């Protein structure tokens, strides 16, 4: 593979690979069928510290670079992207509280997650997907508290998180600038977790609606100044966008691995499939897209490690990589032929898993609008 891995990175990837293949992989098919992942399956990940990889040491994390963290998550995604995204969502939420909140808030959040718990990000609403500024959730000041009323939807880790970062309007009339962010405990009275979404893919990832009915939170739980919620959300998306791209690379690599192995074994017309030029072309294009995606993700991570906000690069990465993944996984199924369509073989799941990468974290159409907007500003 095309990156220049340091020795440390190689060792960490090998460690995660060993754990994931032995402890998680054997259960993936069953969990995918059931659409749920038992909590115990996350124990090896928590024990290894995979939920706090790039969290700074003073908050109990390992303090790895974004670059190395992304490599580890790519490896995890090869086994199951839904499992990986459960951890990504958790540490992204924590990271953003540390970045935008007070040290006390960061410590509080980190202590909970550090013990082996999940976090969620409650931004999206039924009427506010691509357009989060249109959200209707409110947070009304009441003495030293705020009372939050909101209906959130498609919340990753909705049923399993111990903490949420909830976005609601403290000033409904102010549009985007009226949104504020709050840390909310999952067991706060008034939180109603809806049913688990029966999804096409990423079925090991828990996704639910989340309703907040008169949920009372202290004013000290507001993250950042009042009205800074939208900015916080965008910063969070910058980070998570790059990380979902690394998960998509993991899915693609898995698809490529399975497809090449199959093409070498399966014989038709007296020859293994890999001897046929059209199959070769498909495999080559899959490899091209996977490698290019990996390098793009890696570069974006390095920019982030260097302090860059990656507004354009993150969008480019996410849009490009998720579009590639669609094609790569679809061709993997194609190469497997009829067997590829069967759940007995691993590739149809990869195709199902990667579709959502074109949708969430900002649909690819929105990504292109963002890129175009930045381009417009770049040229005088």
């Amino acid at each position, binding site marked *: 593979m095309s990156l220049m891995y340091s020795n440390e990175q190689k*060792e*960490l990837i090998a460690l995660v690979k060993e*754990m994931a293949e032995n402890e998680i992989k054997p259960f993936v098919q069953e969990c995918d069928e059931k659409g749920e992942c038992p909590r115990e399956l996350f124990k090896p990940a928590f*024990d*290894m*510290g995979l939920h706090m990889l790039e969290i700074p040491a003073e908050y109990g994390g*390992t303090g*790895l670079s974004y670059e190395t963290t992304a490599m580890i998550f790519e490896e995890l995604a090869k086994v199951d992207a839904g499992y990986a995204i459960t951890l990504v969502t958790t540490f992204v939420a924590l990271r953003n509280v540390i970045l935008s909140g007070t040290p006390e808030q960061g410590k509080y959040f980190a202590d909970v997650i550090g013990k082996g718990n999940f976090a969620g990000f409650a931004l999206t609403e039924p009427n506010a997907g691509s357009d989060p500024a249109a959200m209707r959730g409110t947070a009304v000041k009441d003495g030293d508290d705020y009372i939050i009323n909101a209906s959130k939807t498609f919340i990753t880790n909705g049923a399993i998180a111990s903490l949420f970062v909830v976005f609601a309007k403290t000033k409904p009339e102010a549009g985007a600038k009226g949104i504020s962010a709050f840390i909310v405990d999952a067991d706060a009275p008034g939180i109603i977790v809806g049913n688990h979404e029966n999804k096409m893919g990423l079925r090991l990832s828990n996704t639910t609606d989340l309703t907040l009915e008169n949920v009372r939170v202290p004013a000290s739980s507001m993250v950042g100044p009042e009205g800074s919620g939208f900015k916080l959300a965008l910063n969070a998306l910058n980070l998570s966008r790059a990380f979902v791209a690394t998960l998509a690379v993991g899915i693609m690599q898995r698809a490529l691995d399975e497809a090449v192995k199959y093409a070498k074994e399966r014989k038709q017309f007296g020859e293994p499939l890999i001897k046929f030029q059209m199959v070769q072309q498909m495999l080559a294009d899959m490899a091209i897209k996977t490698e290019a995606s990996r390098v793009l993700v890696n570069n974006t991570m390095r920019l982030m490690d260097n302090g860059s906000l990656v507004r354009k690069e993150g969008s480019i990465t996410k849009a490009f990589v998720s579009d590639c993944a669609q094609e790569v996984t679809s061709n993997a199924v194609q190469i497997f032929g009829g067997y590829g369509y069967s759940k007995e073989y691993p590739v149809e799941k990869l195709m199902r898993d990667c579709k959502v990468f074109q949708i969430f974290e900002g649909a690819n159409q929105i990504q292109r609008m963002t890129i175009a907007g930045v381009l417009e500003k770049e040229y005088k």
Partner: protein
Amino acid sequence: MNIVVCVKQVPDTTEIKIDPVKNTLIREGVPSIVNPFDKNAIEQALQLKELYGGTVTAISMGPNQAKSSLRIALSMGADKAYLVTDRAFGGSDTYATSYILSKVIEKLGPFDVILGGIQAIDGDTGQTCTSIAEHMGVNRLSYVLDMKMDGDKVVVRRMVEEGVEIVESKLPILVTLTKVSNKPRYATIRGKIDSLKAEIEEIHLTDLPDMDTTKIGLKGSPTRVKATFTPKRQACGEIIELINPKDTAKALVGKLLEAKIL
């Protein structure tokens, strides 16, 4: 409680193939791994440390590349690691190897518990650790499933062919662990990173001044290898392959009855 674990780096013998033409072992491309049973020993050491405090020291006798196995012990949670290496140690059989290791353990000690795996998957003798116990004059129990302290007594459950024995003894003690004893933990990311940077001290013959050099190396080994060979392959026996399973089964039983095997 101070614990020392004996670790060996071995080729992954499940991956070794035999060259069908030369009848020799093909070792290239065979990965070097921590002897699997030694990982069970490291895990036991870490569990004892979690219960009773103290330190876990890993030692390995081998060439420089054995340091990577010691790093794995560190990444799992061992506190210190030492590589025992010297040309003078080369060619040692189990008597000599166990003598050398016993001198190292004496030097680094005193230790309450000495742990190892039941056997190394290359030599397969299962003798080295129990021999260390005899050199040191400490008690030994092999095939231990678990161990704990009860006052000043150590209580172990250990396998025997007929079942499981519960045995009491006193410290210091040498214990060997097997695959079913425990599930060795994975390193943490932090542990792995730190282990890659760790200094692994080397112990040479000159660091062991009271070593009796007549007991080490080829000359100090009471056994020596006369010859080695790969297991003989024979031509395939009788193939029974008929169209349907019923006929196949019938044919097989027929032949077994004929040969008076049934």
